[in-house]
């Protein structure tokens, strides 16, 4: 019943700026797809173009074999869960949910509405008005109102943004459950990387109207393609380095006079200046000169400058001899002793945990955008 959603060469020009720039994107049928990016990156514009609320300046949007760009919103087999829900305040919950079915002249809609209200656990709320419901309940009404039409694609525009943290977690799992149950393609726009990682099968990271990288949450986190992705999804330590040679399947990299190796498969560039990236939880601290490192990369001569204890883990800042500070997360398993500020330490990591990025990029891209 559902088919792939294919965007080809989509651009959107607003007066004075280009919100979306020549975007190509394929959303496979039945997947939970997230468009992730900071505000103003063009993700909501992309969603609105799929819904028909904006027309692309150039490009085509196809659903299976059907071209849908140029169709009015009410002609598209696509429904939207709006940011802040946009429930009709003058209609009760039942009428809100029945709205789409009634417009399409679906006969016998009452049992369908009741069933849908049951799915979102609002069975007894049909006679109430939207204003009488809590934020979480309104959110579920918005979802029910869109889902009841069995669209080919359900678009979600920051649907959990207005909820508090606990409710948001709960709704994330709920949304994922419902998506699995109904099997409809979900395209979910969010600026919250954790939300995208929790729910989505595939994430497209957007920045400045372009897709920076597309892949599963684990792929994006493990091997980011750009400094923006490395910083926007989680945190990364990016160290300036230079490729000086190759040894077997590894590249040899010079980091301020010390040699480390990175597997070739994890390198976006193979020569010249690079950013060496390592996730903070993949770096291990050891007392200075205590370990030889069995095939792991090492940077010796660091000093702990800051210690923050956060329960499950401890977050350290370690200053390297050339002044740069790296972030290190250590799990508080009790297996290793904690360090204090001023301790001399060595940093270790496995080569397969690091990655190389082109040094032409801004090492701080995506950092300031994280909430």
């Amino acid at each position, binding site marked *: 019943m559902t088919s792939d959603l294919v965007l080809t060469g989509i651009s959107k020009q607003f007066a004075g700026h280009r919100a979306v720039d020549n975007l190509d994107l394929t959303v496979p049928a039945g997947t939970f797809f997230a468009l992730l990016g900071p505000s103003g990156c063009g993700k909501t514009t992309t969603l609105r173009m799929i819904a028909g609320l904006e027309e692309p300046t150039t490009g085509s949007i196809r659903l299976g074999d059907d071209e849908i760009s140029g169709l009015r919103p*009410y002609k598209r087999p696509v*429904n939207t869960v*709006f940011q802040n829900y946009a429930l009709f305040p003058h209609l009760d919950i039942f009428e809100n949910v029945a709205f789409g079915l009634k*417009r399409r002249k679906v006969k016998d809609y009452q049992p369908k509405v009741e069933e849908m209200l049951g799915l979102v656990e609002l069975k007894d709320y049909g006679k109430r008005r939207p204003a009488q419901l809590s934020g979480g309940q309104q959110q579920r009404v918005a979802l029910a109102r869109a889902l009841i039409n069995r669209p080919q694609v359900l678009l979600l525009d920051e649907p959990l943004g207005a909820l508090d943290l606990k409710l948001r977690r709960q709704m994330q799992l709920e949304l994922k459950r419902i998506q699995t149950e109904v099997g409809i393609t979900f395209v979910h726009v969010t600026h919250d990387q954790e939300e995208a990682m929790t729910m989505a099968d595939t994430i497209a990271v957007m920045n400045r109207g372009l897709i920076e990288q597309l892949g599963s949450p684990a792929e994006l986190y493990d091997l980011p393609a750009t400094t923006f992705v490395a910083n926007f999804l989680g945190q990364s330590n990016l160290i300036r380095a230079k490729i000086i040679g190759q040894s077997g399947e590894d590249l040899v990299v010079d980091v301020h006079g010390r040699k480390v190796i990175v597997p070739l498969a994890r390198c976006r560039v193979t020569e010249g200046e690079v950013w060496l990236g390592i996730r903070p939880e993949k770096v291990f601290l050891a007392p200075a000169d205590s370990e030889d490192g069995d095939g792991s990369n090492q940077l010796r001569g660091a000093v702990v400058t800051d210690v923050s204890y956060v329960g499950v883990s401890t977050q350290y800042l370690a200053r390297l001899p050339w002044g740069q500070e790296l972030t290190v997360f250590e799990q508080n398993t009790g297996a290793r002793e904690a360090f204090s500020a001023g301790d001399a330490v060595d940093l270790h990591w496995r080569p397969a945990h690091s990655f190389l990025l082109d040094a032409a990029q801004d090492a701080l891209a995506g950092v300031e955008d994280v909430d």
Partner: protein
Amino acid sequence: MTRFGRFIARNFVLVLGFVVLLYLFAPIVVVMLMSFNAPKSRLSYTFDGFTVDNWLHPCRPFGLCDAVSTSLRIGLLATVVATALGTLMAFAMVRHRFRGRSATNLFIFLPMASPEIVLGSSLLALFVSSGFGGRLGFWTILIAHVMFCLSFVVVTVKARLAGMDSRLEQAAMDLYANEWQTFWRVTFPLVFPGILAAALLSFSLSFDDFIITNLNAGTTVTFPMYVWGSAQRDIPPQINVIGTAMFLLALIFVLAGELGRRRRERTRS
């Protein structure tokens, strides 16, 4: 402090409120009382005796009921025309970006800020110079009333429309409602309270107007003109009957609206 002094201190705001209300409603109370007056002479402003005769025969004074009927007809017609036109204008002003939009805003506001005597006399000059001088009457009054009601309608509906989230209409379109259905199912019901308020305002402005009407009426007599005219010669107590009836009618409208609102709220919770 005496006990009375403490009472005053504690309830000062309340007492002040009652005094202001009294000030507001004293004239209306007088009108109500005078509607039951049986005056001894034709120019009597004193309460000479109680009677319900005025209420039983409100049309006895010559021309009174004709004037009321003229005012009602003009009021209703002006309300319908001004509300329809003004609502369309408000939609254009809020929903569309066009050249001269802010200038239009200013021009719409201008009639509200202008003295009525200026509007009335300039309208008269316009009518006379365009050859309608001999035909002043019902239609010229209607044109004048639509003119000054229009601004109030635009301002009232605009406020309501501006407060409406345009995403509601987008949501309706997303849920298979075409433009026509979106307007009648979502936009209109949400803007309707504003349109109703504008219509009620138009009617009361039109029914009540004297200055502009008087200048452009020719030989036609509206209710306010009738009251003014009779105040020169005699005051038929029936005028007070009409005044009281209009006040009660308005009161019933307001109370019914309030009751309806309360009932809706009760059934919701």
